[in-house]
């Protein structure tokens, strides 16, 4: 039943793709231009033709752009001309660095907030004010203080991915069942062992959900941050190709961002499955 459901769903997925590609292809067909009674020779000299190519790239253009980029992803031919693999690696590095730093701060702090109602009350106003700030708003301050574009974008990733992890960790830790804590108490389990063997595994699914949300946000923000600071990265690549008016490359980069984002989300989904447990 579920097997055939998967099968039928993939058929529908493929059909949707075909319809979309067909519509795209149809909409970007060369259009006939009515040149009136202009002399064909003169029109040719003016760069006009009876068949006008579309300004929007066709599916074929995109296909060839994908092929060009993926066949040689790691070349470096100057600071403004690097393979897509290199650009992507820069973006991923910034996201992972900022995310890892955020996790290092958010998980222990979340533990503290989750275990101590006093700290929760004390820190709550700060968290509530900091959470809704667009991460990019920090950029000027970061650039001024850090004076390094790349580290500034890492900081922006750090500041945007810290909140979901912090809030989820605190919630997960506070929601650990009293039963399990009572078991640890009656067994005279020390605070460290209790934190790692009882609270952490109990809260792990919630923490992982927070990490997954953080990673999603970080991947959204890195593109904007790199557009702003320039230099390297997938966000800069898009902005550069826009300046080159190469829409095929822009569309290719958009697709790539989507695929990489999906893979990152899948990874965290799998990690979440590893630490999940069925409550009874």
């Amino acid at each position, binding site marked *: 039943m579920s097997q055939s459901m998967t099968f039928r769903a993939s058929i529908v997925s493929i059909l949707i793709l075909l319809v979309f590609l067909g519509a795209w292809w149809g909409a970007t067909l060369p259009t006939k231009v009515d040149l009136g009674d202009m002399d064909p020779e003169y029109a040719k000299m003016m760069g006009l033709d009876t068949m006008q190519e579309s300004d929007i790239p066709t599916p074929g253009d995109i296909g060839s752009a994908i092929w060009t980029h993926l066949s040689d992803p790691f070349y470096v031919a100057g600071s403004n001309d690097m393979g897509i693999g290199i650009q992507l690696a820069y973006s991923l590095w910034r996201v992972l660095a900022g995310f890892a730093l955020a996790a290092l701060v958010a998980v222990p702090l979340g533990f503290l907030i989750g275990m101590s109602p006093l700290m929760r009350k004390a820190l709550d106003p700060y968290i509530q004010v900091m959470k809704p700030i667009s991460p990019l708003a920090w950029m000027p301050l970061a650039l001024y203080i850090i004076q390094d574009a790349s580290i500034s974008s890492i900081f922006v990733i750090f500041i945007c991915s810290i909140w979901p992890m912090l809030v989820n960790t605190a919630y997960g830790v506070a929601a650990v*069942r009293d039963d399990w804590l*009572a*078991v640890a108490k*009656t*067994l*005279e389990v020390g605070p460290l*062992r209790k934190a790692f063997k009882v609270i952490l595994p*109990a809260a792990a699914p919630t923490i992982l959900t927070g990490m997954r949300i953080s990673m999603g946000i970080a991947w959204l923000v890195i593109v904007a941050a790199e557009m702003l600071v320039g230099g390297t990265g997938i966000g800069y690549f898009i902005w550069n190709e826009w300046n080159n008016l190469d829409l095929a490359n822009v569309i290719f980069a958009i697709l790539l961002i989507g695929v990489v984002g999906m893979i990152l989300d899948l990874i965290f989904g799998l990690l979440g499955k590893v*630490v999940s447990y069925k*409550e009874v």
Partner: protein
Amino acid sequence: MNTPAFIQVDNLERTFPGPMGQDPVTVFRNLNFTIEQGEFVCLIGHSGCGKSTILNILAGLDEASAGYVFMENKEVTGPGLERGVVFQGHALMPWLTVRENVAFAVKSRFKDKPKSEINAQVEKFIDMVGLSHAIDKKPHQLSGGMRQRVGIARAFAIEPKMLLMDEPFGALDALTRGVIQDELLEICRATGQTVFMITHDVDEAILLADKILLMTNGPLAEVAECAENPLKKPRSRQEMHHDGHYYPFRNHLMDFLVNGPSTAYADKLEGDAPPPVEAPADGPRKVVNG
């Protein structure tokens, strides 16, 4: 009293703050009883008389508002490994297997033992409750009865001086309950374990307990009677209703639950002979809490 009791409870009282400015509620007060080493003591009473609170105070998980609990002449002030607890809702950690759940407790108790000895201890006690075949399963793969057995194995595996059980079989069906009661009886007989158990099942108390504490209703609940179980040991579920004391004693306990305190069972006895069984005056007997 020349030798002090193993467990001594002195004038225990627990008061909870009233909800939103109302007067505080004293759930129970003036609680006095003792438990001897190797004794199986059951506490029965209606919901709301603070049974679980008493157990939590004995376990060190809750604090008394007044009064003291002494264990071997030392005041109980917090939780400790010399007291094992079987929780009402088994309280197994769902991310650990049966083996890991029991091992968690064993490692807490015997911190310096080598791995092989820890493993042997874990396997011995899982085998004791007959779950060797399910040792590597997670709690959600087990039935309710099996989970409660793991909880019992975990509590026994730390070899506590005192076992505290909070309605351990309350959530189980009658058949499973009977089987595990038999197992528990067997284990206690073999190990001489001291047990304090909360129940509201009269038959369970008669089968298992050496001494039954009868609590009045809360608030201001008290232990109205401390009844020695008159049925001869060893008792078994199949045989115990042939004991002359079974029906009079069972009626006595039921009357207590339905009508409240009356003459203590010991005072109804003439010599060692059981008192005559009276037919219940109010028609078919009311069933109290199953």
